């Protein structure tokens, strides 16, 4: 088991390297001079030269890259010229919020999605399944930001739930983040129910399930014991695979609901041309995706012995 963990970690290294390369190249995609973009409005040639020297922009590209990696490994993700703060401080502030949101959304998606998938798989091609699939097709085409705005509208009109902000304390978070999490979970729900339904249908057709039926096991007991346990593994995989998409969606959701997570900070940074901030955040987002995928893979190995065999 340890060998598999090590090998999996080893596979991550080139991807991490590529991650840093892309994050590094980001700043150099600017049409103009990176130093010019980093400064506020009033620029003079001397100021530009000073900033260039400060950031080491006069050195050859590969040297800049190595300097970048060195900084990253020491936890220095750059300095935000607009917000006048170190990037890693901003990341540390925003990360817990975003993580809370993502976990919250996953919980909602699972709580709603798993029963829906079971219902769809059990009543395959009958009216419950058709309705659920119709709902999936409809939700797939809904833009997350619009759903967010509509929910915001309803919140403002009815005043039931707070419409923005993070709130204080655990229950404050739960209350304030309910609408954002709900919006976020919608994007994930579609993929989850589709894939889970397909896996469940497959599992229901496997012989041993038929055998259990013959033995006289009731439908509910069958579902809960035999089927669910085998559906957990693909559900986790689906979660891992879509984490990337989910994190991307936080950008929009946080922006609409005024939640100060990483996504909102990214949008602020992008709109104010805060290149170092954007670069640092891109790196962090990529890192999050890789770490979560790694976690999912290892969790899979722990739960499903077939994965362990396949990996060895």
């Amino acid at each position, binding site marked *: 088991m340890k060998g598999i963990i090590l090998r999996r970690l080893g596979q991550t290294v080139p991807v991490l390297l590529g991650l840093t390369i892309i994050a590094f190249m980001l700043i150099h*995609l600017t049409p103009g001079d990176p130093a010019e973009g980093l400064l506020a409005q009033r620029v003079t040639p001397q100021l530009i030269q000073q900033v260039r020297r400060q950031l080491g922009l006069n050195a050859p590209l590969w040297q800049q890259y190595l300097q970048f990696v060195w900084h990253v490994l020491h936890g220095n993700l750059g300095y935000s010229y607009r917000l006048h703060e170190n990037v890693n401080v901003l990341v540390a502030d925003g990360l817990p919020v975003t993580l809370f949101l993502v976990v919250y959304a996953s919980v909602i998606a699972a709580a709603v999605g798993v029963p829906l998938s079971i219902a769809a798989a059990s009543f395959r091609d009958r009216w419950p399944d058709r309705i659920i699939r119709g709902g999936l097709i409809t939700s797939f085409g809904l833009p997350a930001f619009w759903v967010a*705005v509509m929910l915001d509208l309803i919140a403002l009109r009815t005043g039931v739930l707070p419409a923005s902000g993070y709130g204080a304390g655990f229950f404050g978070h739960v209350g304030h983040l309910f609408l954002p999490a709900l919006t976020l979970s919608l994007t994930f729900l579609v993929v989850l129910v589709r894939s889970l339904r397909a896996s469940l249908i497959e599992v229901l057709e496997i012989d041993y399930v038929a055998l259990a039926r013959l033995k006289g096991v009731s439908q509910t007991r069958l579902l809960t014991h035999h089927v669910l346990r085998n559906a957990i593994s693909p559900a986790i995989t689906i979660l891992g695979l879509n984490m990337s998409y989910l994190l991307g969606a936080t950008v*929009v959701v946080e922006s609409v609901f005024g939640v100060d997570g990483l996504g909102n900070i990214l949008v602020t940074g*992008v*709109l104010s041309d805060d290149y170092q901030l954007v670069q640092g955040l891109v790196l962090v987002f990529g890192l999050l995706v890789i770490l979560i995928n790694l976690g999912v893979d290892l969790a899979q190995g722990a739960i499903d012995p077939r994965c362990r065999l396949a990996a060895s």
Partner: protein
Amino acid sequence: MTEIIDRIAADRSLLGRPRLMLRVGSHRTSLWLGVTIIVVIALAGLLAPVIARHSPTSLNIAAALEPPSLGHPFGTDQFGRDVFARTLYAARLDLPLALALVGTGFTIGTIVGVLAGWSRGWFDTAVTRVIDIALAFPFLVLVISIIGVRGPGLGSLYIAVSLISWVFYARLVRAEVRVTMDADYIRAALASGFSKPRIIVRHLAPNVIIQPLVYASSDCVYALLLGATVSFLSLGVQPPRVEWGQMVALGVPYVGSQWWMSTFPGAMIALTGIGFSLIADGLANLVRTGRDS
């Protein structure tokens, strides 16, 4: 020999079966429903100058923030512009934008995927690495960052999408190519003395392209939503050009009381998205039943 003649005689449909095996079923209805929706929206966009009674850009502060009425079916925005006209004209931008974004990713990705799957050498390894790395970032995050770095606008959006979206297609196509080349008929084509370009284009591509096309149909939804989301964040389509996501963003400060400014454009995005989604679902089911038989 008699067996096949008997079979042919007994089942005349054996020879006359059409290519795509369009059978009556739910996939057929969703497919045609989706196509209808898209066609209607496209027509609405094309005929916008005829249908809309107001200009999408002319300001009329006196008539600002009016709720929906007979004269303004979707109401007016904070500058007195007719939301209905703006919504129709925006269709001219959103729809082609989504299709163009998908087309770019599909073309680049298919070419790279075929070359990578066929060559299997260092190029294949390099492509796989790039795909793995690109997939490590949330797509929206990368797109927004690239746009942010290059400056907002449609051009930056195109650049950002062209740089990244091909990865999804390349991965799919490469996998399909490897599966296809495991089968013997490509080797048989080689043994038939056909040139490699001929084999790739006329033997490999038709088999390899089905799954990417199905994916492309659902990618239309993603592309539409991406264009709208990016414009919503003020990073995409810039004024005076009109776009649905941009319109929703303009209405956000007023959303509590003047709900119509954000609701209608967003609903149009949703409707178009549902149309593409229906097409995608129909295509996916079509291909699946074709394979099962």
